[in-house]
Protein backbone atom coordinates (compact mmCIF):
# COMPACT_ATOMS: atom_id res chain seq x y z
CA UNK A 1 0.00 0.00 0.00
CA UNK A 2 2.87 2.38 0.70
CA UNK A 3 4.14 2.66 -2.86
CA UNK A 4 0.77 3.33 -4.46
CA UNK A 5 -0.21 5.78 -1.76
CA UNK A 6 2.91 7.88 -1.68
CA UNK A 7 2.58 8.98 -5.29
CA UNK A 8 -0.81 10.73 -5.23
CA UNK A 9 -0.19 12.33 -1.88
CA UNK A 10 3.07 13.82 -3.08
CA UNK A 11 1.39 15.57 -5.97
CA UNK A 12 -1.56 16.80 -3.98
CA UNK A 13 -0.35 19.98 -2.44
CA UNK A 14 -2.71 22.92 -2.31
CA UNK A 15 -4.40 23.11 -5.68
CA UNK A 16 -4.26 26.27 -7.71
CA UNK A 17 -7.74 27.72 -7.20
CA UNK A 18 -9.41 29.09 -10.30
CA UNK A 19 -10.80 32.60 -9.89
CA UNK A 20 -11.26 34.56 -6.70
CA UNK A 21 -7.85 33.38 -5.58
CA UNK A 22 -7.68 35.47 -2.44
CA UNK A 23 -11.18 34.54 -1.35
CA UNK A 24 -10.57 30.84 -1.92
CA UNK A 25 -7.30 30.92 -0.04
CA UNK A 26 -8.88 32.68 2.88
CA UNK A 27 -11.77 30.23 2.99
CA UNK A 28 -9.36 27.30 2.89
CA UNK A 29 -7.41 28.85 5.74
CA UNK A 30 -10.51 29.37 7.87
CA UNK A 31 -11.82 25.84 7.47
CA UNK A 32 -8.37 24.50 8.23
CA UNK A 33 -8.09 26.70 11.33
CA UNK A 34 -11.41 25.28 12.47
CA UNK A 35 -10.15 21.74 12.03
CA UNK A 36 -6.86 22.47 13.76
CA UNK A 37 -8.64 23.97 16.77
CA UNK A 38 -10.88 20.88 17.02
CA UNK A 39 -7.78 18.64 16.96
CA UNK A 40 -6.02 20.71 19.61
CA UNK A 41 -9.13 20.86 21.79
CA UNK A 42 -9.53 17.10 21.50
CA UNK A 43 -5.91 16.39 22.40
CA UNK A 44 -6.11 18.69 25.43
CA UNK A 45 -9.40 17.09 26.54
CA UNK A 46 -8.00 13.58 26.14
CA UNK A 47 -4.62 14.09 27.80
CA UNK A 48 -4.91 16.97 30.30
CA UNK A 49 -6.96 14.98 32.88
CA UNK A 50 -4.29 12.28 32.87
CA UNK A 51 -1.53 14.85 33.43
CA UNK A 52 -3.56 16.36 36.28
CA UNK A 53 -3.91 12.89 37.82
CA UNK A 54 -0.12 12.56 37.67
CA UNK A 55 0.21 15.97 39.31
CA UNK A 56 -2.00 14.88 42.21
CA UNK A 57 0.47 12.13 43.11
CA UNK A 58 2.56 15.04 44.45
CA UNK A 59 -0.30 16.35 46.58
CA UNK A 60 0.58 17.38 50.12
CA UNK A 61 -2.64 16.05 51.68
CA UNK A 62 -4.76 12.93 51.47
CA UNK A 63 -7.10 14.20 48.76
CA UNK A 64 -7.01 13.08 45.13
CA UNK A 65 -9.31 15.94 44.22
CA UNK A 66 -8.27 19.08 46.13
CA UNK A 67 -4.74 20.46 45.83
CA UNK A 68 -3.11 20.84 49.26
CA UNK A 69 0.45 21.82 48.40
CA UNK A 70 3.45 19.97 47.02
CA UNK A 71 5.02 16.98 48.71
CA UNK A 72 6.86 13.80 47.81
CA UNK A 73 5.23 11.74 50.56
CA UNK A 74 3.28 9.50 48.15
CA UNK A 75 6.50 8.69 46.32
CA UNK A 76 8.98 8.28 49.17
CA UNK A 77 7.03 8.30 52.45
CA UNK A 78 6.04 5.26 54.56
CA UNK A 79 2.61 4.97 52.87
CA UNK A 80 3.98 5.63 49.38
CA UNK A 81 3.65 3.53 46.27
CA UNK A 82 7.04 1.89 46.82
CA UNK A 83 6.46 1.13 50.52
CA UNK A 84 2.86 -0.02 50.68
CA UNK A 85 2.86 -3.68 49.51
CA UNK A 86 -0.68 -3.30 48.15
CA UNK A 87 0.64 -0.96 45.46
CA UNK A 88 3.92 -2.54 44.50
CA UNK A 89 2.47 -6.05 44.56
CA UNK A 90 -0.13 -4.92 42.01
CA UNK A 91 2.58 -3.40 39.81
CA UNK A 92 4.66 -6.58 40.03
CA UNK A 93 1.68 -8.78 39.27
CA UNK A 94 0.68 -6.69 36.23
CA UNK A 95 4.18 -6.97 34.79
CA UNK A 96 4.33 -10.70 35.53
CA UNK A 97 1.07 -11.27 33.65
CA UNK A 98 2.19 -9.11 30.71
CA UNK A 99 5.53 -10.91 30.33
CA UNK A 100 3.92 -14.37 30.52
CA UNK A 101 1.23 -13.36 28.03
CA UNK A 102 3.82 -12.09 25.54
CA UNK A 103 5.86 -15.30 25.93
CA UNK A 104 2.79 -17.43 25.23
CA UNK A 105 0.84 -15.49 22.62
CA UNK A 106 3.63 -14.45 20.25
CA UNK A 107 4.96 -17.95 19.37
CA UNK A 108 1.47 -19.43 19.46
CA UNK A 109 -0.04 -16.72 17.27
CA UNK A 110 2.84 -16.56 14.79
CA UNK A 111 2.91 -20.32 14.24
CA UNK A 112 -0.87 -20.46 13.88
CA UNK A 113 -0.72 -17.61 11.35
CA UNK A 114 1.94 -19.45 9.33
CA UNK A 115 -0.31 -22.51 9.37
CA UNK A 116 -3.33 -20.49 8.20
CA UNK A 117 -1.47 -18.76 5.38
CA UNK A 118 0.61 -21.71 4.12
CA UNK A 119 -1.96 -24.49 4.50
CA UNK A 120 -3.17 -25.94 1.22
CA UNK A 121 -6.10 -28.29 1.04
CA UNK A 122 -9.14 -28.20 3.28
CA UNK A 123 -9.88 -24.53 3.88
CA UNK A 124 -8.32 -22.85 6.89
CA UNK A 125 -11.26 -20.42 7.01
CA UNK A 126 -13.00 -21.97 10.07
CA UNK A 127 -9.74 -21.56 12.00
CA UNK A 128 -9.51 -17.91 10.95
CA UNK A 129 -13.11 -17.34 11.96
CA UNK A 130 -12.66 -19.01 15.34
CA UNK A 131 -9.56 -17.01 16.09
CA UNK A 132 -11.39 -13.72 15.48
CA UNK A 133 -14.39 -14.56 17.69
CA UNK A 134 -12.81 -13.03 20.83
CA UNK A 135 -12.58 -9.69 18.99
CA UNK A 136 -16.29 -9.66 18.14
CA UNK A 137 -17.75 -10.89 21.42
CA UNK A 138 -17.81 -8.27 24.21
CA UNK A 139 -14.98 -8.99 26.62
CA UNK A 140 -17.44 -9.39 29.48
CA UNK A 141 -19.11 -12.32 27.67
CA UNK A 142 -15.75 -13.95 26.95
CA UNK A 143 -14.65 -13.41 30.55
CA UNK A 144 -17.83 -15.03 31.85
CA UNK A 145 -17.42 -17.95 29.43
CA UNK A 146 -13.82 -18.48 30.51
CA UNK A 147 -14.83 -18.20 34.16
CA UNK A 148 -17.34 -21.05 33.73
CA UNK A 149 -14.82 -23.07 31.69
CA UNK A 150 -12.25 -22.85 34.47
CA UNK A 151 -14.60 -23.34 37.43
CA UNK A 152 -16.94 -25.99 35.96
CA UNK A 153 -14.86 -28.01 33.49
CA UNK A 154 -11.11 -27.54 33.87
CA UNK A 155 -10.92 -28.36 37.55
CA UNK A 156 -7.14 -28.71 37.39
CA UNK A 157 -6.79 -25.00 36.56
CA UNK A 158 -7.42 -22.83 39.60
CA UNK A 159 -8.51 -19.22 39.42
CA UNK A 160 -5.46 -17.02 39.84
CA UNK A 161 -2.31 -16.27 37.89
CA UNK A 162 -2.54 -19.28 35.54
CA UNK A 163 -6.18 -18.61 34.69
CA UNK A 164 -5.46 -14.89 34.26
CA UNK A 165 -2.65 -15.61 31.80
CA UNK A 166 -4.82 -18.09 29.87
CA UNK A 167 -7.70 -15.61 29.73
CA UNK A 168 -5.60 -12.68 28.57
CA UNK A 169 -3.78 -14.86 26.05
CA UNK A 170 -7.07 -16.01 24.50
CA UNK A 171 -8.12 -12.43 24.09
CA UNK A 172 -4.75 -11.21 22.78
CA UNK A 173 -3.98 -14.14 20.45
CA UNK A 174 -6.33 -12.78 17.71
CA UNK A 175 -4.43 -9.49 17.73
CA UNK A 176 -1.13 -11.30 17.15
CA UNK A 177 -2.77 -13.26 14.33
CA UNK A 178 -4.16 -10.10 12.68
CA UNK A 179 -0.75 -8.42 12.74
CA UNK A 180 1.22 -11.48 11.59
CA UNK A 181 -1.19 -12.37 8.79
CA UNK A 182 -0.99 -8.80 7.50
CA UNK A 183 2.74 -9.26 7.16
CA UNK A 184 2.56 -12.81 5.79
CA UNK A 185 0.25 -11.66 3.01
CA UNK A 186 3.05 -9.46 1.68
CA UNK A 187 5.73 -12.18 1.78
CA UNK A 188 5.63 -14.26 -1.41
CA UNK A 189 5.94 -18.00 -0.84
CA UNK A 190 8.85 -17.95 -3.31
CA UNK A 191 11.45 -17.19 -0.65
CA UNK A 192 10.76 -20.40 1.20
CA UNK A 193 10.48 -22.39 -2.04
CA UNK A 194 13.82 -21.04 -3.20
CA UNK A 195 15.36 -21.96 0.14
CA UNK A 196 14.06 -25.51 -0.16
CA UNK A 197 15.12 -25.79 -3.81
CA UNK A 198 18.61 -24.87 -2.67
CA UNK A 199 18.59 -27.75 -0.25
CA UNK A 200 17.14 -26.34 2.95
CA UNK A 201 14.93 -28.57 5.06
CA UNK A 202 11.44 -27.18 5.83
CA UNK A 203 12.71 -26.33 9.29
CA UNK A 204 15.64 -24.40 7.86
CA UNK A 205 13.42 -22.62 5.32
CA UNK A 206 11.22 -21.50 8.15
CA UNK A 207 14.05 -20.45 10.42
CA UNK A 208 16.34 -18.86 7.83
CA UNK A 209 13.88 -17.42 5.30
CA UNK A 210 10.48 -16.81 6.83
CA UNK A 211 11.17 -15.88 10.45
CA UNK A 212 13.67 -13.10 9.60
CA UNK A 213 11.11 -11.64 7.19
CA UNK A 214 8.48 -11.85 9.92
CA UNK A 215 10.64 -10.07 12.48
CA UNK A 216 8.85 -6.69 12.30
CA UNK A 217 5.46 -8.36 12.75
CA UNK A 218 6.77 -10.43 15.66
CA UNK A 219 8.02 -7.29 17.38
CA UNK A 220 4.83 -5.38 16.68
CA UNK A 221 2.81 -8.30 18.10
CA UNK A 222 4.92 -8.36 21.23
CA UNK A 223 4.45 -4.61 21.79
CA UNK A 224 0.69 -4.78 21.28
CA UNK A 225 0.34 -7.92 23.42
CA UNK A 226 2.29 -6.27 26.22
CA UNK A 227 0.33 -3.02 26.17
CA UNK A 228 -3.08 -4.71 25.92
CA UNK A 229 -2.22 -7.11 28.74
CA UNK A 230 -1.11 -4.28 31.04
CA UNK A 231 -4.37 -2.44 30.31
CA UNK A 232 -6.69 -5.45 30.60
CA UNK A 233 -9.30 -5.36 33.32
CA UNK A 234 -12.38 -7.50 32.72
CA UNK A 235 -10.81 -10.92 32.05
CA UNK A 236 -8.09 -10.35 34.63
CA UNK A 237 -10.77 -9.54 37.19
CA UNK A 238 -12.93 -12.57 36.41
CA UNK A 239 -9.94 -14.94 36.47
CA UNK A 240 -8.51 -13.58 39.71
CA UNK A 241 -8.65 -15.35 43.05
CA UNK A 242 -7.30 -13.54 46.10
CA UNK A 243 -5.80 -10.10 46.57
CA UNK A 244 -2.38 -11.55 45.68
CA UNK A 245 -3.55 -11.78 42.06
CA UNK A 246 -4.69 -8.17 41.93
CA UNK A 247 -3.39 -6.28 38.91
CA UNK A 248 -3.04 -2.50 38.64
CA UNK A 249 -6.31 -1.89 36.73
CA UNK A 250 -8.15 -4.07 39.27
CA UNK A 251 -6.70 -2.11 42.17
CA UNK A 252 -7.57 1.20 40.54
CA UNK A 253 -11.12 -0.05 39.98
CA UNK A 254 -11.66 -1.07 43.59
CA UNK A 255 -9.81 1.83 45.20
CA UNK A 256 -10.84 4.83 43.11
CA UNK A 257 -14.22 5.41 44.69
CA UNK A 258 -12.89 4.65 48.16
CA UNK A 259 -10.61 6.59 50.44
CA UNK A 260 -7.35 5.68 48.72
CA UNK A 261 -4.56 8.20 49.08
CA UNK A 262 -2.71 9.94 46.20
CA UNK A 263 -0.33 6.95 46.33
CA UNK A 264 -2.93 5.42 43.98
CA UNK A 265 -2.17 8.20 41.50
CA UNK A 266 1.53 7.59 42.01
CA UNK A 267 1.05 3.90 41.22
CA UNK A 268 -0.94 4.76 38.09
CA UNK A 269 1.83 7.17 37.07
CA UNK A 270 4.53 4.52 37.53
CA UNK A 271 2.51 2.12 35.40
CA UNK A 272 1.75 4.60 32.62
CA UNK A 273 5.33 5.85 32.39
CA UNK A 274 6.67 2.28 32.37
CA UNK A 275 4.23 1.25 29.61
CA UNK A 276 5.05 4.28 27.48
CA UNK A 277 8.82 3.76 27.91
CA UNK A 278 8.70 0.02 27.18
CA UNK A 279 6.45 0.33 24.13
CA UNK A 280 8.55 3.31 22.99
CA UNK A 281 11.73 1.22 23.20
CA UNK A 282 9.91 -1.57 21.38
CA UNK A 283 8.95 0.88 18.67
CA UNK A 284 12.55 2.08 18.26
CA UNK A 285 13.64 -1.55 17.97
CA UNK A 286 10.87 -2.12 15.46
CA UNK A 287 12.06 0.76 13.29
CA UNK A 288 15.58 -0.65 13.54
CA UNK A 289 14.47 -4.13 12.45
CA UNK A 290 12.49 -2.78 9.51
CA UNK A 291 15.04 -0.08 8.63
CA UNK A 292 15.88 -1.51 5.21
CA UNK A 293 12.25 -1.35 4.21
CA UNK A 294 10.89 1.94 3.02
CA UNK A 295 8.19 3.07 5.36
CA UNK A 296 7.42 6.64 4.40
CA UNK A 297 4.74 7.16 7.01
CA UNK A 298 2.80 4.76 9.13
CA UNK A 299 2.18 1.94 6.71
CA UNK A 300 2.92 -1.71 6.21
CA UNK A 301 2.11 -3.72 9.27
CA UNK A 302 2.47 -0.70 11.52
CA UNK A 303 -1.03 0.53 10.79
CA UNK A 304 -2.72 -2.88 11.15
CA UNK A 305 -0.80 -3.15 14.41
CA UNK A 306 -2.22 0.10 15.72
CA UNK A 307 -5.66 -0.74 14.37
CA UNK A 308 -5.45 -4.14 16.04
CA UNK A 309 -4.46 -2.33 19.18
CA UNK A 310 -7.65 -0.34 18.84
CA UNK A 311 -9.57 -3.56 18.46
CA UNK A 312 -7.93 -4.87 21.58
CA UNK A 313 -9.84 -2.24 23.44
CA UNK A 314 -10.20 -3.77 26.87
Amino acid at each position, binding site marked *: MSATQAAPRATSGRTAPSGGLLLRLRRARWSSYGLVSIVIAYLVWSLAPVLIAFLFSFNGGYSRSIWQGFSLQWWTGPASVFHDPMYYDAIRHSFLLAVLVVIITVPLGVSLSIFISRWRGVSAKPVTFLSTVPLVVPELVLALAMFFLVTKLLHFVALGTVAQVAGQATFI*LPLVIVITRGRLASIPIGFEEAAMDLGATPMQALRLALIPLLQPAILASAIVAFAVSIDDFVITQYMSSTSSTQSVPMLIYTATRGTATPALNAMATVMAVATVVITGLGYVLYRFVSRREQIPTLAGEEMPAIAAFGEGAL
Partner: protein
Amino acid sequence: MYPRRYLLALGLPGLIWVVLFVTVALYSLIAIAVGGLDPLLLTPVPAWNPLHWSSSSLTLVLSALKPFAGPDWVVFQRTCIYIAIALAGCILIGYPVAYYTAVCAKRSKPFILALLVAPLLVSYMLRMLAWVGLLGPGGWVNAVLVPLHIVPPQFNWLDGRSVTVICGLTYGWIPYFIIPLYAALARFDTRYLEASRDLGAGTVGTFLHVTLPMSKQGILAGTVLVALPLFGDFFTNGLLSGVSSTAMVGTLINTYAQSQTEQTLAAATAVWLTAFLAILLIPYLRSSARATREVAR
Protein backbone atom coordinates in the same frame (compact mmCIF):
# COMPACT_ATOMS: atom_id res chain seq x y z
CA MET B 1 5.96 -26.71 -0.22
CA TYR B 2 5.98 -27.62 3.45
CA PRO B 3 4.99 -31.23 4.22
CA ARG B 4 1.46 -31.34 5.62
CA ARG B 5 2.53 -33.11 8.79
CA TYR B 6 5.02 -30.37 9.44
CA LEU B 7 2.49 -27.56 8.96
CA LEU B 8 -0.04 -29.34 11.14
CA ALA B 9 2.50 -29.66 13.93
CA LEU B 10 3.11 -25.92 13.60
CA GLY B 11 -0.56 -25.02 13.79
CA LEU B 12 -1.73 -27.60 16.30
CA PRO B 13 -0.86 -25.84 19.59
CA GLY B 14 -2.65 -22.68 18.48
CA LEU B 15 -5.59 -24.71 17.16
CA ILE B 16 -6.00 -26.56 20.45
CA TRP B 17 -5.78 -23.29 22.34
CA VAL B 18 -8.41 -21.55 20.23
CA VAL B 19 -10.80 -24.53 20.28
CA LEU B 20 -10.45 -25.02 24.03
CA PHE B 21 -10.55 -21.43 25.18
CA VAL B 22 -12.98 -20.04 22.63
CA THR B 23 -15.29 -22.84 21.50
CA VAL B 24 -15.39 -24.88 24.68
CA ALA B 25 -15.55 -21.74 26.83
CA LEU B 26 -18.51 -20.36 24.89
CA TYR B 27 -20.14 -23.79 25.08
CA SER B 28 -19.76 -23.81 28.85
CA LEU B 29 -21.41 -20.39 28.95
CA ILE B 30 -24.37 -21.86 27.08
CA ALA B 31 -24.32 -24.99 29.25
CA ILE B 32 -24.63 -22.82 32.37
CA ALA B 33 -27.38 -20.70 30.79
CA VAL B 34 -29.46 -23.80 30.01
CA GLY B 35 -28.43 -25.64 33.17
CA GLY B 36 -29.99 -25.65 36.59
CA LEU B 37 -29.10 -24.96 40.20
CA ASP B 38 -27.78 -27.49 42.68
CA PRO B 39 -30.71 -27.91 45.12
CA LEU B 40 -28.47 -28.00 48.20
CA LEU B 41 -25.52 -25.75 47.41
CA LEU B 42 -27.48 -23.39 45.13
CA THR B 43 -24.51 -23.29 42.76
CA PRO B 44 -25.07 -23.37 39.00
CA VAL B 45 -24.83 -26.83 37.44
CA PRO B 46 -23.94 -26.88 33.74
CA ALA B 47 -26.03 -29.03 31.39
CA TRP B 48 -23.35 -30.42 29.05
CA ASN B 49 -25.74 -32.79 27.31
CA PRO B 50 -28.13 -30.99 24.89
CA LEU B 51 -30.84 -33.52 25.92
CA HIS B 52 -30.79 -32.06 29.43
CA TRP B 53 -31.10 -28.46 28.36
CA SER B 54 -33.75 -26.42 30.07
CA SER B 55 -34.79 -23.04 28.76
CA SER B 56 -36.13 -21.72 32.07
CA SER B 57 -33.34 -19.18 32.73
CA LEU B 58 -33.32 -18.02 29.13
CA THR B 59 -37.08 -17.39 29.12
CA LEU B 60 -36.88 -15.80 32.56
CA VAL B 61 -34.28 -13.30 31.36
CA LEU B 62 -36.17 -12.70 28.15
CA SER B 63 -39.42 -12.00 29.97
CA ALA B 64 -37.59 -9.54 32.24
CA LEU B 65 -36.44 -7.76 29.08
CA LYS B 66 -39.95 -7.64 27.60
CA PRO B 67 -40.44 -4.26 25.87
CA PHE B 68 -42.13 -1.62 28.06
CA ALA B 69 -43.23 -4.26 30.60
CA GLY B 70 -40.28 -6.25 31.96
CA PRO B 71 -38.30 -4.91 34.94
CA ASP B 72 -35.03 -5.01 32.99
CA TRP B 73 -36.41 -3.33 29.88
CA VAL B 74 -35.52 0.07 31.38
CA VAL B 75 -31.91 -1.08 31.72
CA PHE B 76 -31.78 -2.27 28.13
CA GLN B 77 -33.38 0.93 26.87
CA ARG B 78 -30.96 3.02 28.93
CA THR B 79 -28.01 1.04 27.57
CA CYS B 80 -29.08 1.69 23.98
CA ILE B 81 -29.63 5.42 24.61
CA TYR B 82 -26.30 5.88 26.41
CA ILE B 83 -24.45 4.01 23.69
CA ALA B 84 -26.21 5.90 20.89
CA ILE B 85 -25.29 9.28 22.43
CA ALA B 86 -21.72 8.16 23.17
CA LEU B 87 -21.32 6.93 19.58
CA ALA B 88 -22.73 10.20 18.22
CA GLY B 89 -20.16 12.03 20.37
CA CYS B 90 -17.40 9.77 19.07
CA ILE B 91 -18.37 10.51 15.46
CA LEU B 92 -18.84 14.29 15.94
CA ILE B 93 -15.53 14.75 17.76
CA GLY B 94 -13.55 11.85 16.32
CA TYR B 95 -14.28 12.34 12.63
CA PRO B 96 -12.75 15.84 12.30
CA VAL B 97 -9.74 14.72 14.35
CA ALA B 98 -9.14 11.58 12.27
CA TYR B 99 -9.80 13.46 9.03
CA TYR B 100 -7.35 16.23 9.82
CA THR B 101 -4.65 13.78 10.90
CA ALA B 102 -5.06 11.49 7.90
CA VAL B 103 -5.67 14.00 5.11
CA CYS B 104 -4.55 17.53 6.09
CA ALA B 105 -1.67 17.12 8.54
CA LYS B 106 1.78 17.01 6.96
CA ARG B 107 4.83 17.57 9.11
CA SER B 108 2.89 17.39 12.37
CA LYS B 109 1.38 14.01 11.45
CA PRO B 110 3.70 11.66 13.41
CA PHE B 111 3.39 13.94 16.43
CA ILE B 112 -0.41 14.04 16.37
CA LEU B 113 -0.53 10.28 15.79
CA ALA B 114 1.66 9.67 18.81
CA LEU B 115 -0.70 11.78 20.93
CA LEU B 116 -3.71 9.93 19.51
CA VAL B 117 -2.17 6.58 20.46
CA ALA B 118 -1.04 7.82 23.89
CA PRO B 119 -4.44 7.22 25.59
CA LEU B 120 -4.22 3.57 24.53
CA LEU B 121 -0.96 3.22 26.44
CA VAL B 122 -2.25 5.05 29.49
CA SER B 123 -4.64 2.50 30.92
CA TYR B 124 -8.40 2.96 30.72
CA MET B 125 -8.75 2.74 34.50
CA LEU B 126 -6.17 5.47 35.00
CA ARG B 127 -8.08 7.78 32.66
CA MET B 128 -11.26 7.14 34.65
CA LEU B 129 -9.34 7.67 37.91
CA ALA B 130 -8.30 11.07 36.55
CA TRP B 131 -11.92 12.08 35.98
CA VAL B 132 -13.05 10.83 39.39
CA GLY B 133 -10.53 13.25 40.89
CA LEU B 134 -11.65 16.12 38.68
CA LEU B 135 -15.40 15.56 39.14
CA GLY B 136 -15.51 15.22 42.94
CA PRO B 137 -17.50 17.84 44.89
CA GLY B 138 -14.36 19.88 45.58
CA GLY B 139 -12.68 18.99 42.28
CA TRP B 140 -11.33 21.20 39.53
CA VAL B 141 -14.44 20.91 37.33
CA ASN B 142 -16.56 22.47 40.07
CA ALA B 143 -13.83 25.01 40.74
CA VAL B 144 -14.55 26.33 37.26
CA LEU B 145 -18.32 25.76 37.01
CA VAL B 146 -19.45 26.87 40.50
CA PRO B 147 -18.16 30.48 40.24
CA LEU B 148 -19.89 30.69 36.83
CA HIS B 149 -23.15 29.61 38.53
CA ILE B 150 -23.57 26.70 36.12
CA VAL B 151 -23.85 24.19 38.96
CA PRO B 152 -24.63 24.76 42.67
CA PRO B 153 -21.75 24.56 45.19
CA GLN B 154 -20.70 21.05 46.30
CA PHE B 155 -22.42 19.59 43.23
CA ASN B 156 -21.47 15.92 43.03
CA TRP B 157 -21.09 14.69 39.47
CA LEU B 158 -20.42 11.15 40.68
CA ASP B 159 -23.65 10.21 42.45
CA GLY B 160 -25.46 8.59 39.54
CA ARG B 161 -25.84 11.15 36.78
CA SER B 162 -26.49 10.05 33.21
CA VAL B 163 -24.49 13.03 31.86
CA THR B 164 -21.38 11.90 33.70
CA VAL B 165 -21.70 8.29 32.55
CA ILE B 166 -22.32 9.24 28.90
CA CYS B 167 -19.40 11.69 28.88
CA GLY B 168 -17.25 9.07 30.57
CA LEU B 169 -18.14 6.44 27.97
CA THR B 170 -17.39 8.88 25.16
CA TYR B 171 -14.11 9.95 26.74
CA GLY B 172 -13.05 6.40 27.44
CA TRP B 173 -13.80 4.85 24.08
CA ILE B 174 -13.18 7.66 21.57
CA PRO B 175 -9.47 6.81 21.06
CA TYR B 176 -10.53 3.34 19.95
CA PHE B 177 -12.89 4.97 17.44
CA ILE B 178 -10.35 7.42 16.04
CA ILE B 179 -7.56 4.92 15.33
CA PRO B 180 -9.46 2.60 12.93
CA LEU B 181 -11.14 5.62 11.33
CA TYR B 182 -7.70 7.15 10.80
CA ALA B 183 -6.50 3.88 9.26
CA ALA B 184 -9.42 3.98 6.81
CA LEU B 185 -9.03 7.67 5.98
CA ALA B 186 -5.27 7.36 5.45
CA ARG B 187 -6.08 5.56 2.20
CA PHE B 188 -8.11 8.59 1.10
CA ASP B 189 -6.96 9.83 -2.30
CA THR B 190 -7.01 13.64 -2.12
CA ARG B 191 -7.15 13.87 -5.92
CA TYR B 192 -10.87 13.21 -5.63
CA LEU B 193 -11.22 16.45 -3.68
CA GLU B 194 -9.39 18.35 -6.41
CA ALA B 195 -11.55 16.73 -9.08
CA SER B 196 -14.69 17.64 -7.19
CA ARG B 197 -13.56 21.24 -6.84
CA ASP B 198 -12.51 21.44 -10.49
CA LEU B 199 -15.96 20.19 -11.46
CA GLY B 200 -17.52 23.10 -9.58
CA ALA B 201 -18.55 21.67 -6.21
CA GLY B 202 -18.20 23.94 -3.19
CA THR B 203 -16.70 23.01 0.15
CA VAL B 204 -20.00 21.70 1.52
CA GLY B 205 -20.89 19.91 -1.71
CA THR B 206 -17.49 18.23 -1.87
CA PHE B 207 -17.79 17.13 1.73
CA LEU B 208 -21.31 15.74 1.33
CA HIS B 209 -20.87 14.06 -2.03
CA VAL B 210 -17.22 12.98 -2.03
CA THR B 211 -15.57 12.97 1.38
CA LEU B 212 -18.42 11.56 3.45
CA PRO B 213 -19.39 8.66 1.13
CA MET B 214 -15.72 7.69 0.85
CA SER B 215 -15.27 7.61 4.61
CA LYS B 216 -18.49 5.70 5.27
CA GLN B 217 -16.71 2.38 5.64
CA GLY B 218 -14.23 3.81 8.14
CA ILE B 219 -16.96 5.41 10.25
CA LEU B 220 -18.89 2.16 10.22
CA ALA B 221 -15.82 0.14 11.24
CA GLY B 222 -15.02 2.53 14.09
CA THR B 223 -18.63 2.52 15.27
CA VAL B 224 -18.78 -1.28 15.36
CA LEU B 225 -15.41 -1.56 17.08
CA VAL B 226 -16.56 0.78 19.85
CA ALA B 227 -20.19 -0.34 20.09
CA LEU B 228 -19.33 -4.00 20.78
CA PRO B 229 -17.25 -3.40 23.92
CA LEU B 230 -19.63 -0.63 25.01
CA PHE B 231 -22.38 -3.23 25.40
CA GLY B 232 -20.20 -5.14 27.85
CA ASP B 233 -18.96 -2.07 29.72
CA PHE B 234 -19.76 -2.06 33.43
CA PHE B 235 -16.60 -0.51 34.85
CA THR B 236 -17.12 3.04 33.50
CA ASN B 237 -20.51 3.03 35.15
CA GLY B 238 -19.10 1.53 38.32
CA LEU B 239 -16.44 4.20 38.65
CA LEU B 240 -18.42 7.28 37.60
CA SER B 241 -21.78 6.43 39.14
CA GLY B 242 -22.06 3.14 40.99
CA VAL B 243 -25.80 3.67 41.38
CA SER B 244 -28.41 1.33 39.89
CA SER B 245 -30.31 4.25 38.34
CA THR B 246 -27.63 4.43 35.63
CA ALA B 247 -27.07 0.67 35.31
CA MET B 248 -26.43 -0.77 31.85
CA VAL B 249 -26.67 -4.32 30.49
CA GLY B 250 -23.00 -4.88 31.34
CA THR B 251 -23.72 -3.83 34.93
CA LEU B 252 -26.62 -6.26 35.04
CA ILE B 253 -24.50 -9.22 33.87
CA ASN B 254 -21.67 -8.31 36.22
CA THR B 255 -24.00 -7.98 39.20
CA TYR B 256 -25.60 -11.37 38.47
CA ALA B 257 -22.16 -12.94 38.08
CA GLN B 258 -21.09 -11.73 41.54
CA SER B 259 -23.69 -13.83 43.36
CA GLN B 260 -23.36 -17.56 42.94
CA THR B 261 -27.10 -18.28 42.90
CA GLU B 262 -27.62 -15.82 40.04
CA GLN B 263 -24.75 -16.93 37.81
CA THR B 264 -27.22 -18.84 35.65
CA LEU B 265 -28.97 -15.55 34.96
CA ALA B 266 -25.64 -13.88 34.14
CA ALA B 267 -24.94 -16.59 31.57
CA ALA B 268 -28.46 -16.36 30.11
CA THR B 269 -28.24 -12.56 29.80
CA ALA B 270 -24.82 -12.88 28.17
CA VAL B 271 -26.22 -15.37 25.65
CA TRP B 272 -29.09 -13.03 24.72
CA LEU B 273 -26.74 -10.05 24.51
CA THR B 274 -24.44 -11.95 22.14
CA ALA B 275 -27.41 -12.96 19.97
CA PHE B 276 -28.62 -9.35 19.89
CA LEU B 277 -25.18 -8.08 18.89
CA ALA B 278 -24.87 -10.73 16.19
CA ILE B 279 -28.11 -9.45 14.64
CA LEU B 280 -26.84 -5.86 14.87
CA LEU B 281 -23.61 -6.92 13.15
CA ILE B 282 -25.25 -8.40 10.05
CA PRO B 283 -25.72 -5.07 8.17
CA TYR B 284 -22.11 -4.15 8.90
CA LEU B 285 -20.74 -7.47 7.70
CA ARG B 286 -22.86 -7.20 4.53
CA SER B 287 -21.69 -3.69 3.73
CA SER B 288 -18.04 -4.48 4.40
CA ALA B 289 -18.30 -7.58 2.19
CA ARG B 290 -19.83 -5.40 -0.54
CA ALA B 291 -17.03 -2.84 -0.13
CA THR B 292 -14.41 -5.59 -0.39
CA ARG B 293 -16.05 -6.90 -3.57
CA GLU B 294 -16.09 -3.41 -5.09
CA VAL B 295 -12.41 -2.94 -4.35
CA ALA B 296 -11.62 -6.33 -5.82
CA ARG B 297 -13.49 -5.55 -9.03
